[in-house]
């Protein structure tokens, strides 16, 4: 039997837990069931495991272990950073600066704070998706207590000038947070180089388990906790620690540091092949995001006259897992706020395709994608009443 080639090209959504991570976690479910707060041997064993995971995460971020707070993932880290800092610093001011292309975990948190009396500036971005450091500088007022800008965008892959924004925020004495969920374990995330006071990350984006993440909180930064209870995580996050998950996160972070540059280069080469081949073989297509300052594994392509949900489902039928910023794939029926913010008209935002590569992505999977993609686009365009003229530059014209 010939099995259909499969290609999981949705690593920005989630990644598989690596074997080594799984093996590191396994004992902490049954064999070592201790609660890290207990005094006995079981508890001490769990505490040691937490300490060692904390050191692994701290080492990857170039910070001190006592600056790491474990959470349930990226969303909680963003919530704790933003709400926590704003509630702890409301005596100093009520103004937050962020961008229009942040993850919903940041945007929805900011909108919640607006209802609580905070004022939020949502900075626009350039066509390539960049926040301008000058815009950040111009937006800072006496009342600004937090700047939060993501390290790299989850949809279009644009890597922000975080270090420059950090210099500005620090120069004005404003706390700076970055959501590094898409970059941690993929590119260097040195909290000192970036100049951030807080940084969010999530394990399942870097071959660790779902349901665990971390927030870097620089020494001296005051946060109001969101979950009240015991004195876990320096009283910033009450609740018995997810020991197995945290061990998994620590292991995944340590593994990611090994060979990070080589893996980034490998994915970048595959990514560039996808971008170049797709754009040259399929007419009326474009790249969303920046060509240069881009996540190594992210290709976000736009195709005119078609709609992304159909694209994703037809690719799924060919064994390829991808995603889209199309409205029809979301429950809100609005095109992606990111694609809208970079200036795409809604009709073009509907035809986007996000392909995100990872450690498991092979050359032959990319071959398979590039074999299938032109035909899939062509099939949908043949059905589309929006098509104008001939859009094929490639050799596919006679087929399908």
């Amino acid at each position: 039997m010939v099995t259909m080639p499969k290609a999981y090209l949705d690593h920005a959504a989630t990644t598989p837990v690596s074997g080594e991570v799984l093996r590191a976690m396994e004992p902490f479910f049954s064999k070592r069931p201790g609660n890290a707060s207990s005094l006995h041997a079981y508890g001490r064993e769990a505490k040691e495991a937490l300490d060692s995971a904390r050191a692994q995460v701290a080492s990857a971020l170039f910070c001190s272990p006592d600056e790491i707070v474990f959470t349930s993932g990226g969303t909680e880290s963003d919530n704790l950073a933003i709400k926590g800092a704003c509630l702890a610093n409301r005596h100093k001011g009520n103004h937050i600066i962020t961008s229009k292309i942040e993850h919903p975990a940041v945007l929805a948190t900011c909108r919640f704070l607006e209802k609580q009396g905070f004022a939020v500036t949502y900075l626009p971005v350039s066509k390539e998706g960049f926040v301008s450091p000058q815009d950040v500088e111009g937006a800072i007022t006496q009342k600004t207590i937090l700047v939060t800008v993501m390290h790299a965008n989850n949809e279009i892959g644009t890597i922000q000038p975080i270090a420059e924004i950090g210099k500005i925020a620090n120069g004005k004495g404003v706390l700076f947070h970055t959501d590094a969920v898409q970059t941690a374990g993929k590119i260097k995330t040195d909290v000192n180089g970036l100049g951030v006071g807080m940084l969010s990350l999530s394990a399942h984006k870097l071959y660790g388990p779902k349901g665990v993440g971390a927030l870097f909180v620089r020494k001296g930064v005051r946060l109001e906790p969101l979950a009240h209870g015991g004195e876990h995580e320096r009283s910033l996050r009450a609740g018995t620690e997810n020991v197995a998950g945290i061990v998994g996160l620590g292991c995944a972070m340590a593994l990611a540091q090994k060979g990070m540059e080589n893996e980034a280069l490998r994915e970048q080469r595959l990514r560039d092949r996808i971008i170049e081949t797709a754009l040259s073989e399929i007419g009326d297509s474009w790249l969303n995001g920046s060509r240069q300052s881009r996540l190594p594994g992210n290709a976000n392509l736009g195709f005119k006259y078609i709609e992304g949900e159909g694209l994703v489902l037809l690719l799924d039928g060919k064994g390829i897992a991808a995603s889209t910023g199309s409205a029809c794939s979301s429950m809100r029926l609005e095109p992606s706020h990111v694609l809208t913010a970079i200036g795409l008209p809604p009709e073009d935002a509907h035809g986007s395709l996000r392909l995100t590569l990872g450690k498991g992505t092979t050359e032959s999977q990319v071959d398979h994608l590039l074999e299938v993609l032109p035909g899939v686009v062509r099939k949908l365009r043949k059905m589309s009443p929006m098509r104008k003229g001939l859009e094929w530059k490639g050799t596919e014209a006679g087929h399908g």
Partner: protein
Amino acid sequence: MADMYSKKVMDHFYRPRNTGEMKKPDAVGEVGNPVCGDVMKIYIKVKGGRIDGIRFQTMGCAAAIATSSMVTELAKGKTLEDAQKITRQDVADALSGLPPIKMHCSNLAADALHAAIGNYLKGAEKARAEKKD
């Protein structure tokens, strides 16, 4: 995502019936808006008061494509009067249902069919009026 769709929806999405532009149709109906991501165009040929030929072109999600395909199947061979009675609900039922969120936005195929029939009848009326003159 594919999970929220019935087998019938997926069948009509993967193998849509009666697609493509029709040369010299008797009437065309077009609904939707590219801004919303859904545009449907239905072409009909009418013979002896019946829909003799029908084709569609749709830009939209899987539900939009499947409903377009299904409405062409439902309308084929029907009298104009019967075809006009095909409702959005009939189309959704014939597809074993649609996800609730898609019932409104992507279920415009019946509207496109009615628009095509309406345009045909207007054209026919105009032709009669011109004959009388």
